[in-house]
């Protein structure tokens, strides 16, 4: 990001309430796989109860970036990070922070739907709690609420005991969203949640994101620019591990300040 861009981003921040006190702040975040540095110092805010899209050509580090926000990056062998990621002002990379606790606050939905195959739909929704050995009392309410939030309730309410993998791809992805929501996270990370889905399922998930951003802080990775413009309040453009541009989605798409952003959104590369 150039100095001009940064000033521009700061001024946007000043003019917008949502960025004045962001839910998360990423400061000079760097990430490595072994010796190769795939994130090269990223600084940006994540607005509370808004959706932020991460766009960029494939391989630019979108997945790596989003996985740094709930410390899933370090699950990979040989992967490490530097820099700070603040959640409500607290650095999640500080010594003593329990990544397990963090991931309960910052939920994640993956690119490929991955419901647990040996669990029923109901058990999948409760999986986050069950994994931690918690047996909630109002289990049925919890399941219904999460499935309603994920806009899946009407389709599965009569087959809650069927296997999670018996659902269609789009339903499986919404089941994974319900599974994440059942833990009542504050932030929801989604890594290309629609890339394995057909257009109708994609539209359903996009509608869902519209609803979710009223209540949750959503970060969504997408390589689909229409999708970013449809669902995101803010957009960050990553290129070769660097944050090229960050700002309000409408501004990024109508008057990008960096020629690389313009080239990307007009489809000249990527």
């Amino acid at each position: 990001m150039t100095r001009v861009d940064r000033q521009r981003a700061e001024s946007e921040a000043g003019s917008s309430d949502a960025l004045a006190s962001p839910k998360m702040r990423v400061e000079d975040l760097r990430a490595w796989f072994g010796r190769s540095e795939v994130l090269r110092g990223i600084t940006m805010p994540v607005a509370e109860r808004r959706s932020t899209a991460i766009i960029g050509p494939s391989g630019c580090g979108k997945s790596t970036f989003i996985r740094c926000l709930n410390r899933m990056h370090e699950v990979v062998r040989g992967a490490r990070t530097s820099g700070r990621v603040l959640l409500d002002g607290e650095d999640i990379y500080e010594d003593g922070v329990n990544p397990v606790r963090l991931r309960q606050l910052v939920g994640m939905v993956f690119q490929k739907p991955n419901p647990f195959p040996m669990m029923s739909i109901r058990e999948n929704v409760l999986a986050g709690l069950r994994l931690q050995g918690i047996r909630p009392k109002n289990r049925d309410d919890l399941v219904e609420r999460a499935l309603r939030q994920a806009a899946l309730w009407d389709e599965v309410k009569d087959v809650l005991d069927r296997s999670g993998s018996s659902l269609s791809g789009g339903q499986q992805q919404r089941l994974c969203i319900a599974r994440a929501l059942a833990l009542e996270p504050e932030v929801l990370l989604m890594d290309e949640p629609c890339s394995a889905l057909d257009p109708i399922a994609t539209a359903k998930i996009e509608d869902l994101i519209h609803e979710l951003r009223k209540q949750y802080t959503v970060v969504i990775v997408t390589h689909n620019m229409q999708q970013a413009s449809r669902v995101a309040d803010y957009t960050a453009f990553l290129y070769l591990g660097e944050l090229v541009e960050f700002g309000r989605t409408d501004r990024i798409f109508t008057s990008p300040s960096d020629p690389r952003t313009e080239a990307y959104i007009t489809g000249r590369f990527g």
Partner: protein
Amino acid sequence: MNRASPRRDVPPPTRLLKTPEGGARAPERVFEVICLLALMLPLLLLVVLIAQAFTDGRERLTWEFLTSYPSRFASQAGILPALVGSACLMMLTAVIAIPIGVGAALYLEEYARESRWTSFIEVNISNLAGVPSIIYGLLGLELFVRAMRMGRSLLAGAATLSLLLLPMVIMASREALRTVPQSTREACYALGADRWQTIRRVVLPMSLPGILTGIILSLARAIGETAPLITIGALTYVAFLPDSVYSPFTALPIQIFNWISRPQTDFHVNAAAGIVVLLAIMLVFNGAAIWLRSRFQRRFS
């Protein structure tokens, strides 16, 4: 020039899809038959072997044979102590080998970081699986019977067989653990589960059928092992049932070996009957493994 010239070096291109051989070409047919023979030959030998043992031992395949102690008289001798000894041996072996084997596999697959040390261990585990079983017998004799003063007991036998099985159990368990996709583990972590919760509630349940299949198959192999048990000094003539893990014992293959090495042909009949019983047990074990595997495939694919 006439297009359909009668003299050509290359046969004329034909539009006919049907050939005299039908769908497959001749060399393919030949190869198919060879492969079929390769399959039928061992199968045939196996059938002959079982049929031979069955006809030889048929007159002794009675309830008494299963419930009698050995005797000087071939017609009164039975395999009760051997059967009970084998069963106890299998149970003890399972109790020792399963937790250690699955634990080692869990460590290597889920916890160990890749290093020279772990790859050294990995290579050696596969090598150990190929070590002749009598070597394990010698190790068991020195280590368990003598150094650890277990004597020629069931416990020493089971410990020795466990050594023999561990490489197989570890490799089969690792194979099963590897079938659980990384994405499933990541789903668990992303839900705020730690490593142990992930293993206990998701990875192990998903790989359990595969692990069990491996364990059963290796137990089926262990039940036929003779050399290591003879090496550590299992008895060949036992007229009592084991009453503790420190009892002396005998096992089915040892009883068979004993009978077969006697000069009197009457005892050879007993040996044949014993072989049929042993084969039947192995068949049950393998059947259980196949059943488990098919269930496993139906549930997860």
